[in-house]
């Protein structure tokens, strides 16, 4: 559906560098990355609002270098919704159809239908500034969809909403994609949204596409240390590969050793061992029958928020964070200040090298 072939694009302080990408028909494609990484520029390049300095963009198998935005049949929605402030809701939604010279009766009919679909028929004569964020969001969606695009570009569509409305729209977006048979490209830096919506995820850092894969690949086994940090892996321990055997590597971190699945690393590589807080088990005695991936530490703080208790632990090299279920805490009688053992299964450790390797001893 959408192909980027070595796209480069400079635009003031933002830039894309040699981005190659393929988004298939019907995908819910997520683009995540820190702010300023070039995510919005990428969306705008798809919509035809910027011309690349180098490379090709294919849309529906055709080179669209000379196709202006108005002829691309791609709708774009920004975080601020960008409703036309001088038009009523009905005029906003009608705008696209009028531009496409649809007859006035048909415009009226199609706008009426979509306003009913989105539950905004009662807002028809309101001006955008008189409406809440959630209402504006629905109008913007209706305006984008009434022209029947087959691609919908979303630039942080949920960032400006409060948590409850956001939750509602997350489900709504998934439903809309099915209903309209859309290919969606969604830019965000929310991990939760990606987990709930994405079929595939790409990570952009500093204008470069540094990773692409299913959401499980990116979130559970991030290929680089920087991505691990970005997707919120709580524990990132820097070390060095000291051996590989049987599909696993051994990573030395200070005086400790951790085993992790091998991902094509070799001895001497600098890597970070990344572990999610909820994968760490805590016990007051050495875990029976476990000899690897066991560390000792001391509980510094415990914080309960619902069923899980978040612990900060002091270990020989760095503070670590573990999420433990409340029942475990009670069973083991865990308390602040206690000396404990930390264990995690080798398959839960992600060995991630750095994108920008630094020289160190």
């Amino acid at each position, binding site marked *: 559906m959408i192909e980027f072939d070595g796209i480069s694009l400079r635009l003031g302080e933002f830039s894309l560098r040699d981005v190659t990408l393929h988004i298939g028909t019907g995908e819910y494609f997520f683009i995540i990355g820190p702010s300023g990484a070039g995510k919005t520029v990428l969306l*705008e390049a798809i*919509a*035809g*609002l910027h011309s690349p300095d180098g490379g090709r963009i294919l849309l529906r198998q055709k080179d669209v270098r000379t196709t*202006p*935005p*108005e002829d*691309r049949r*791609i*709708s*774009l*929605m*920004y975080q*601020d919704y*960008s409703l*036309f*402030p*001088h038009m009523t809701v009905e005029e906003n939604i009608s*705008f*696209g159809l009028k*531009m*496409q010279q649809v007859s006035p009766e048909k415009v009226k009919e199609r706008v009426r239908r979509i306003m009913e679909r989105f539950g905004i028929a009662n807002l028809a004569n309101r*001006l955008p*500034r008189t409406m809440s964020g959630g209402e504006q969001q629905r109008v913007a969606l209706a*305006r*984008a969809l009434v*022209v029947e695009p087959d691609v919908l570009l979303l630039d942080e569509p949920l960032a400006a909403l409060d948590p409850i409305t956001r939750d509602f729209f997350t489900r709504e977006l998934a439903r809309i994609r099915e209903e309209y048979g859309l290919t969606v490209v969604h830019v965000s830096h929310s991990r939760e949204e990606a987990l709930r919506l994405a079929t595939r995820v790409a990570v952009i850092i500093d204008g470069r596409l540094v990773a692409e894969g299913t959401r499980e690949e990116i979130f559970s086994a991030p290929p680089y240390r920087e991505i691990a940090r970005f997707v919120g892996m709580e524990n990132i321990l820097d070390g060095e590969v000291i051996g590989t055997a049987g599909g696993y590597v051994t990573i030395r971190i200070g005086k400790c050793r951790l085993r992790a699945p091998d991902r094509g690393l070799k001895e001497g590589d600098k890597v970070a061992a990344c572990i999610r807080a909820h994968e760490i088990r805590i016990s007051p005695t050495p875990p029976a029958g476990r000899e690897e991936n066991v560390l000792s530490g001391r509980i510094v703080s415990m914080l309960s928020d619902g069923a899980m208790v978040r612990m900060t632990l002091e270990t020989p090299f760095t503070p670590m964070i573990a999420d433990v279920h409340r029942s475990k805490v009670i069973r083991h009688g865990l308390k602040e200040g206690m000396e404990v053992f930390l264990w995690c299964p080798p398959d839960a450790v992600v060995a991630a090298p750095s994108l920008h390797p630094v020289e160190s001893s």
Partner: protein
Amino acid sequence: MKGDRSWWKGHRSSHRLPDACLLSFALFGSLIVVLTVLAILSLAVPEVGDIPHLLEVAAKGRIVDSILLTMGAGLNAVLILLLFGIPLAYVLARVNFRGKGIVESLVDLPLMLPHTIAGIMVYLLFMERGPLGAPLAQAGIFFEDAYAGVVVAMVFVSSPYLINSVREGFENVPLHIENVARTLGASRFQAFARVVLPLSVRHIYSGAILAWGRAIGEFAAIIMIAYYPMVISTVIYYTFTTQGIKEARSVAFVFLVVCLAVFGLLRFLTRFMGKYDDRI
């Protein structure tokens, strides 16, 4: 400063008084404002005190004609500026191109140019032997001591006011809104006409008022190319040199009252314009 503050420390009002620093700043700064107030009073008080003479001056055909000429030529200049200035302002607001800095300097030049130099330039360009004046004279349009000369001088000196204000209006329309219009099927011109222009109405209007005010107040640039027909500034100066300050003061006061009335009216009309650009 700490010592200074003591004088109000004992004050019992629930609103704390502004501190000594602010008060002395206000006192000092108000001298400029007082100067302006005094200037207005010294013009207005004697005139208001001699209404019959004032009416007599105001009713003179020469004065009325001159005021109408000045206002009309100003309007004419603004219409020409709108025609050429709006496209230029849009290009400056939306496109980055090499040499943009030079174009911006050229647009701003009449702002910083001493007025008599501007007058010399306009004269050189539009006099009957001038590079633009000569061919246009062939076509029957004359500028020296003619209405067209007044308009051309006004266009030259007031262009930056209109262009910069309209440009600011266009820049205030978020690019995102224009982008969305494009993706919905609008060509660039349609997006401009349906979205950017309506959202900039207030900036265009106030730019036009500014340019018009600058145009009707111009003196130096106009007298070089067109001492006749006399615009009101020329009449005031001519009266001052030939009849003295008392007569000139009356003419100036009449013109001032007309100017303030028209500006007041124009500003008042702004209220009825779309207010969308307040909040975008």
